[in-house]
Every structure is written in C-alpha cells, then in structure tokens.
C-alpha cells in the first residue's frame, strides 16, 4: 500500500512550485521521500535529480541557477557537513541563490547518537556562512514560509534554508521511548 502523502509534504511541495522552483536536486532521506512523493503526485512538471553527494547537489544547483533556473536542494542535516565548502566557496562567494530544504535528524526524538553532533552543528554552521535558517514547525502555513524563504533567496541572491524538524515530519513517534 502506498502511504498517503502527509499534509506537510504537500504544503512544502506547493510552496516550492509557487516560488517558481522547477528543479529539485536531492540526496535522499526518509522524510524527504514524502516531499518527493508529493512533487511526483501533485506537480508532474517538477524535474527532480538525485545526486550522489550533497556538495555535488549544490554544484548542480549552482549550474542550474547560472543557466536561468531557480533550484531547490534537499538533503538531510548530516549532509550539510558534506556540503559546507560548496556552499561557502561557490554559492555564498558568487552570490548564487538556492533554496535549501534540510531534513533534521539528531534533535528531539533521536535514538542514534551518531546523528546528534552534526545536528548541533547545523545552525551554527549556517549562521557562520550567513545563511538564514527558517524552521518549519507546523504543516499549516508551511507553503507560505517556503515561498517567503524562496523570495529571500532569489530576491537577495543568497542561499537560504528551511529546516524540517522531526516534530513536523514524524509527528507521532512510538511511545515508551524511541527505538
């Protein structure tokens, strides 16, 4: 059975389309699969490209922008570590915008200790690069927030990020402690 597409994923997909994004480059992650599903179901003209690594995804996104597109890049918080230099020395240095949609691990509800250190580094790393981070806490209004973040990115030519915490993407964790 194909699970129903959750509202948060539909909202973010709608927000991306309303922002003029027609290219999504991504490295897969479990919650992001719902967003990709929403794009595939509701927005068939969205081109999605899977990359092998996050810095590669940012290189592809930079090329898309240089060619006239408005790219979004999707990856997990752990992948921000892989992406740091491409963000810093390509997107930030050349003022090349992209909307980053980062699915968070290592925060509330996390059970895997290896995910926690990079999660703690996400906001300080983005802040050090001058990249604003907007946390999408609820499905309601997520489309508007994505659109606003994209307006900031493409209007001011700076990469801009939306963070997707697990309280958004997995609102019903197992009771009695996560396993």
């Amino acid at each position, binding site marked *: 059975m194909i699970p129903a597409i959750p509202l948060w994923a539909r909202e973010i997909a709608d927000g991306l389309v309303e922002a003029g994004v027609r290219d999504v480059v991504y490295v897969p992650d479990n919650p992001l699969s719902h967003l990709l599903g929403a794009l595939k179901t509701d927005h068939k003209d969205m081109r999605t490209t899977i990359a*092998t690594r996050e810095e590669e995804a940012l*290189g*592809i996104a930079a090329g898309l922008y240089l060619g*006239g597109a408005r790219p979004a890049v999707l990856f997990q918080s752990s992948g921000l570590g892989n992406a740091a230099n491409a963000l810093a020395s390509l997107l930030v240095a*050349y003022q090349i915008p992209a909307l980053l949609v980062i699915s968070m691990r290592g925060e509330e509800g996390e059970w895997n200790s290896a995910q926690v250190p990079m999660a703690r580094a996400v906001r300080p790393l983005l802040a050090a690069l001058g990249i604003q981070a907007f946390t999408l806490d609820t499905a309601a209004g997520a489309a508007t927030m994505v659109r606003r973040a994209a307006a900031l990115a493409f209007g001011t*030519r700076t990469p801009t990020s939306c963070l997707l915490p697990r309280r958004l993407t997995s609102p019903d964790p197992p009771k009695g402690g996560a396993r």
Partner: protein
Amino acid sequence: MTRLDATRLLHRWLTSEAVVASLGHPAYDLYAAGDRAASFYAWGSMGVASSIGLGLAMAQPYRRVVVLDGDGSLLMNLGTLATIGVVAPANLVIVVWDNGEYGTTGGQPTATARGADLARAAAALGIPRTATVDTPDALDRTLAQAFAEAGPWVVVAKVRESGPGPKPPLDCVFIKQRFMEAVGVAERSTRGDDVQ
C-alpha cells in the same frame, strides 16, 4: 602537449559555448587563452566543476556546455560522472586536463600517475562517449567529434604541467553576472520586483 597548449587549441573551437573551468590552473589557462564573458572561472569548490556543468546543461539544453576539469579535482567527485550518466545531457562536454598531479598545489601525484584511467571510469559510470588523447592532433579530432555529435562526452587529455598563467578576474560576483548575461539570463535589478 602542455595544458596551456591544449587549452589554446580548445579555445579555438569556442563560439557560443558556456565554459566552466575548475579552480586553479585550468581556470588560469582558460583566461590566458582568451577571456570571454561565457567563461565561468571557479575560485573555490574544488571538485564540483563538472557538476556545475551538468546543472548548466540541464538548464540550457540547446547550448553546448564545456567543462575544463582536472584529474585531481574530478577524483574528488567521481560520483558526479554517475549522475551525468543518468541525466545524460547530450550538450555536455567534459574535458579533463590529466597531468597526473595536483599542479596548483605543488605537483603531488594523483592516482592517474599510477595508472588510474578516468575515461574508463567515466564509461563504467554510464558516460556514453569517452576518449583519451595525448597529442594536439588527437585532441583536435576528438573535439571536432564532441562538438558535432551528441554526448555527454568525457575527453581525457593527457597534458604536461605548464605552470600558472595570469589570473582571471578575482571578483566572483562580476564573473557570475557577466557569465549569466552572456548565456542570456542576465540577473535583473536588485529591486526585487521579479520575485513573488
């Protein structure tokens, strides 16, 4: 042939192509061969030049996109060859200046100096058109093919290090804006009235 000789030879083929040059000597040589607005000189992000080329080729499928990468930098991001194999943009030509060393950083050997074969790697990762050339004539003939027949192409050109040339413009934003104007997508004013 030296990398600068090879770059000059390639430069003679260029008309409306968008060109992306990896940081360091590939970018310096492209500038030395002749500055052009549709040349994007990378100053950082080692390894992702071919990925930038892929994105450009996707955004502008009717324009030929040429990437000047290096053996050391491509080895940092071999996975992108697999992505290029999957996306398969017919208008993308990747030229790898393979001198077997990290020329910009003092000549430390790369794996190609010990026999690693980037053209075979590209073919194994799904790139349909690959070639290895080591003379100016062979490079010229292969470029004639790559500029006429559908790709994506990976052309590995065995070159000798020619030392650093003059530096391209240092202003990254200038490079970007000039490049985008040249490929027909000039950034609009910063008033923001083009955004939603």
